[in-house]
């Protein structure tokens, strides 16, 4: 019963915000019929009662939800967004835009502020404005969502995106891992990218744009492993060339000679697999986008002596 009264009070206050006064008695009555007689769960009952009074008072549903609950939230920082399904408002810079992976998605990418970064998605159905990479915006009434332990932002039809005048520096959270490079994965070596979306081609065709004339590129998708954890790392063309000494031109030559682009990855593998590296970069999903990579050399003599001393003790 307590729940009923609490809920009807909340509904009443909600309507009061749009200057509509409703008798609490009326609300409670409706709720109680639904809950007690028809055994409707309280959340469903609340929804039903709310939309009933919306209809009675002829209020536009979208406007009601946009204005009633969340409009005047004060902005938060991205690092504070740790709770699932929470409405929030914040200022951020669009750090990266990715190619949407679904026809219903308008835009997707990464937003960042001084405290961190977060993935966002806007949907075509929401009629949301198009964001520009590198610009700052205020994101009002957006919802957090958690999937496999990672937070992202969903922008819905009650959200509002306004240009933000201030300057926001996106925090780069650099991660360093040390370990042996134990594998080069599919898609390492000489690859072709789609000229439209920059995605790598598989068998000469792009997942989005079909058969295209690809642009050659080099990269390494590797695994760094220290025996306890492993980390997928991605090296761009510059780092790949520096690390392996194989330039793009050389790679094309190798591929041409063997009539197989896979040879490039094999040759790269011979030069780097089993070697120890210290790798620093930005973590995006399960990959570490590498910014610097250098061979790791342990101070073996000293450390062995320390180990020996500790064991003999």
């Amino acid at each position, binding site marked *: 019963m307590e729940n009923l009264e609490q809920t009807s009070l909340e509904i009443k206050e909600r309507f009061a915000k749009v200057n509509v006064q409703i008798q609490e008695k009326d609300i409670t009555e409706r709720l109680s019929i639904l809950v007690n007689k028809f055994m409707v769960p309280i959340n469903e009952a609340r929804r039903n009662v709310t939309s009933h009074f919306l209809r009675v008072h002829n209020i536009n549903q979208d406007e009601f939800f946009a204005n009633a609950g969340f409009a005047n939230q004060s902005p938060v920082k991205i690092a504070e967004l740790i709770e699932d399904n929470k409405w929030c408002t914040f200022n951020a810079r669009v750090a990266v835009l990715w190619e949407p992976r679904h026809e219903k998605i308008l835009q997707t990418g990464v937003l960042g502020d001084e405290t961190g970064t977060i993935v966002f998605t806007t949907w075509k159905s929401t009629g949301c404005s198009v964001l520009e990479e590198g610009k700052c915006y205020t994101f009002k009434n957006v919802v957090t969502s958690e999937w*496999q332990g990672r937070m992202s932002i969903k922008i819905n039809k009650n959200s509002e995106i306004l240009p933000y005048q201030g300057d926001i520096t996106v925090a780069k959270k650099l991660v360093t891992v040390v370990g*042996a490079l134990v*594998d080069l994965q599919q898609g390492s070596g000489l690859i072709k990218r789609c000229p439209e979306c920059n995605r790598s081609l598989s068998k000469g065709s792009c997942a989005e744009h079909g058969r295209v004339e690809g642009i050659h590129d080099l990269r390494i998708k590797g695994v760094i492993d220290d025996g306890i954890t492993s980390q997928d790392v991605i090296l761009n063309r510059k780092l790949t060339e520096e690390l392996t000494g194989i330039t793009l031109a050389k790679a094309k030559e190798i591929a041409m000679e063997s009539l197989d682009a896979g040879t490039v990855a094999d040759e790269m593998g011979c030069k780097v697999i089993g070697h120890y590296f210290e790798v620093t970069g930005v973590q995006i999903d399960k990959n570490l986008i590498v910014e610097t990579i250098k061979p790791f050399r342990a101070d073996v003599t000293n450390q062995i002596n320390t180990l020996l001393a500790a064991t003999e003790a």
Partner: protein
Amino acid sequence: MAGNFERMKAARLFAAELKATTIEVPKKGGDQYESQLYLTQTGAKAARVMIVGTATEIEDIGTDNNFYRMRVSDPTGVHFITAGQYQQEAAKVMQELIQSLPVFVAVIGKVSLYNNGENTTLVSIRAEQVSIVDENIRDTWLLETAKATLDRLSAFKANPVLEQEVAAAYQKRENYNPTLSKIY
């Protein structure tokens, strides 16, 4: 395969420890891609290993197809590495290495056990990757493996459940305790 499938880490094991490994960890079931783990005498459960040592011998023991077997020695013993038609890259590297023995190599591969029918279990590593390395990498690996082995030993002593599991699996176990001075 599930999207959040987790890669098996490459355990660092000395030859002495791997050679003495004869026990398969029972699979949990329910996943057709589940790797076979092996229980070592220090309580490590590993499917994949990384070893660095000196390749001393490489033979083609295949009958129809090429099938290479390589001996790689570290300071505690010898690893047997194999590569056949399903490990083409590794096989290719091994074939090329025949000309340049002895040489320091790094090997990453999956452990497999063979029972020769006479109560002897042979341990080998099916190579996924083989590459030439230098002395410096060999030393780094030795240090890392020594540390990892010591860490396993102390974790093992602090974990009665694991200790019992190993004791039950290796009833006739000799006191396995590689000394660091031997390794160094």
